[in-house]
């Protein structure tokens, strides 16, 4: 009897030894004369348990983790003799961290073989596109709008409205562009879904294509993600072979083709107009808006440009209906958000859940606090341009508007946890430094402001005229916020000002006791 095992091929699992474990399993099994079949899946997103090894049983998959090469012999013995093992976590689906989630977008991630189109279809893949083809453009637009889906890249613009604008535009050519330039530290959801369920992204983009009348799409993936590039390219080849890309998709009259383009290490290219410039082969300089990409986008043509997660949400909405998606969430934030728990955190990983969960639940309860075991002092939400939140704001619900009301943003859903050893002056300086290095240079507040920001924060760190320089930084942030062309210069003030506001004690030295004694 052959044992079927599942080991992730996700970059996050490879980084902690998944390949070594898979190889050791193969070798140890051969030595014992046990027949094993190892399926390389994406990751379930429970990264503190990676490398996770799952075994197929009549009762479903049983998980073991984190498995090292050294654990492999005893693990195989336990499997062969059906005896307990120290690393046994029980049924994968029953692991509380996974069970608590609402996996709509990531339902298949970590379950299927991302190289297999058959596996994708066997798990409900392409049901959304099939329905979309029977619905036609207008009905699809109604569904996408009714789902309440907002751009998951960070800006939160209603996807239905964007698509409708492009659908109504008249042009000889239109484009679909997927923004996979996931540069925010603390985020990895795009990477995970591209590596673990690439056909989902293709299905979402294809649906966008038939809806707005575009026949060509590009996926712009950052060069830091070579595994995602490989996975998407392999999936595109498979989809073409089976008639899901190319001419007459699913025997319809629609045609759609896809191409992967690789970035070159510029953070700014995650900004949509900069990304379009880069795709056109130019420096990633931000364009002034208007005109919007929906009217005047790639090569000057009407373009739908969405984040990976926005496209990845589409197949569920079409397969299950807009209401099934919109039933989750709170306020104007409908559906689910794949939240990424990162940094100094005990249970780091991807947690997809309906909007409305509080920051405190995410960090303390789900994330389990820090892995160093020290108290959580600050969390940065939404990447390098997101605000630092103190514990006092842990009641903030995960929702676009609730975060905005507290001078923050949810961005792409990344949460980076810091313990009490963090020096917020350093973090504020880093935010300015990062902006200075990554600024495209087109507008002055971002290009010059960030450099002056670094200098001024350095003066504060050195204790030079602290209160004057603090006022100067605040003023500078104001200029950057309102005077910058895009979110890089415009949002860099978020981490800086939040650090100043919520962690003032790091910037202003406590009065010396010597003075008090006089």
């Amino acid at each position, binding site marked *: 009897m052959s044992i079927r095992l599942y080991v992730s091929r996700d970059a996050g699992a490879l980084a*902690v030894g998944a390949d070594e474990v898979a190889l050791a399993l193969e070798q140890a099994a051969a030595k014992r004369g046990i027949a094993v079949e190892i399926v390389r899946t994406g990751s379930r997103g429970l990264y*503190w348990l990676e490398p996770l090894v799952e075994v197929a049983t009549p009762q479903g998959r049983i998980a073991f983790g984190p498995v090292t090469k050294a654990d492999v012999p005893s693990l195989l013995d336990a499997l062969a003799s059906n005896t307990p093992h120290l690393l046994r976590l029980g049924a994968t689906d029953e692991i509380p961290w996974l069970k608590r989630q609402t996996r709509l977008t990531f339902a298949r991630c970590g379950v299927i073989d991302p190289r297999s189109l058959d596996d994708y279809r066997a798990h409900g893949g392409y049901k959304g596109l099939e329905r979309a083809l029977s619905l036609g453009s207008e009905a699809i637009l109604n569904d996408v709008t009714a789902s309440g889906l907002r751009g998951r890249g960070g800006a939160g613009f209603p996807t239905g409205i964007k698509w409708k604008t492009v659908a109504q535009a008249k042009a000889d050519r239109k484009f679909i562009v997927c923004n996979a330039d996931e540069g925010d*530290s603390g985020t990895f959801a795009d990477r995970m879904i591209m590596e673990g369920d690439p056909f989902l992204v293709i299905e979402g983009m294809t649906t966008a294509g038939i809806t707005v009348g575009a026949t060509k799409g590009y996926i712009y993936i950052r060069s830091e993600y070579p595994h995602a590039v490989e996975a998407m390219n392999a999936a595109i080849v498979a989809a073409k072979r089976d008639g899901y890309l190319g001419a007459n998709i699913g025997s319809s009259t629609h045609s759609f083709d896809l191409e992967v383009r690789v970035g070159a290490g510029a953070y700014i290219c995650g900004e949509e107009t900069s990304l379009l410039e880069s795709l056109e082969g130019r420096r990633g300089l931000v364009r002034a808006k208007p005109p919007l990409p929906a009217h005047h986008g790639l090569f000057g043509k009407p373009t739908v440009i969405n984040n990976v997660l926005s496209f990845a949400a589409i197949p569920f909405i079409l397969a299950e209906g807009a209401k099934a998606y919109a039933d989750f969430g709170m306020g104007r934030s409908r559906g689910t958000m794949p939240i990424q728990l990162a940094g100094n955190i005990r249970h780091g990983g991807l947690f997809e859940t309906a909007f409305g969960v509080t920051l405190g639940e995410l960090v303390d309860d789900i994330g389990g606090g820090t892995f160093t075991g020290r108290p959580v002092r600050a969390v940065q939400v939404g*990447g390098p341009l997101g605000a630092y939140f103190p514990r006092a704001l842990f009641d903030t619900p995960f929702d676009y508007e609730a975060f905005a009301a507290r001078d923050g943003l949810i961005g792409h859903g990344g949460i980076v946890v810091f313990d009490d050893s963090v020096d917020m002056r350093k973090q504020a300086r880093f935010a300015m430094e990062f902006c200075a290095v990554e600024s495209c240079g087109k507008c002055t507040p971002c290009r010059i402001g960030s450099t002056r920001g670094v200098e001024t924060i350095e003066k504060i760190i050195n204790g030079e005229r602290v209160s004057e320089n603090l006022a100067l930084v605040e003023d500078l942030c104001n200029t950057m916020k309102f005077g910058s062309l895009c979110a890089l210069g415009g949002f860099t003030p978020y981490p800086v000002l939040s650090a100043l506001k919520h962690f003032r004690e790091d910037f202003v030295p406590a009065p010396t006791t010597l003075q008090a004694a006089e």
Partner: protein
Amino acid sequence: MTTVYEPWDETRGAEIIAEHSRQEGATLVILHALQEAFGYVPEAAIPMVAQALNLSRAEVHGVFTFYHDFRHKPAGRHVLKLCRAEACQAAGGDALAARAEATLGVSLGSTTADDRVTLEPIYCLGLCATAPSAMLDGRLFGRLDEKRIDALVAEAKR
């Protein structure tokens, strides 16, 4: 595992450029392909790209210098990239980067005198839940600590 690159050769360069020049917006695609073949983008290739794409030399030079990835000269035999973004900072990445710099005797962004190791910062490998992380010649490493970073540096120096 060292990547072996071809020495710069004009005919080979022209071939690579011709292979991609018909794509729309081909500049980055071509620069990537050149770097993949030669390990860097040779100065001599810039005017060739410009001519093939009917662009000015300044335009291509502008693109080449805008993006962090493109190299002006070959890297060391091994390239060790340390993630320096916030999630890795939160997990103790600063100290590990300083340790790697001290062991190799170079600062981030430079190559050892014997051309063996290029040490570079990278802003996010997307391994933020298994931070701190690094990439050595394309292989990924997470949950780094002093012992693991020392082993990586030692491997790179070999």
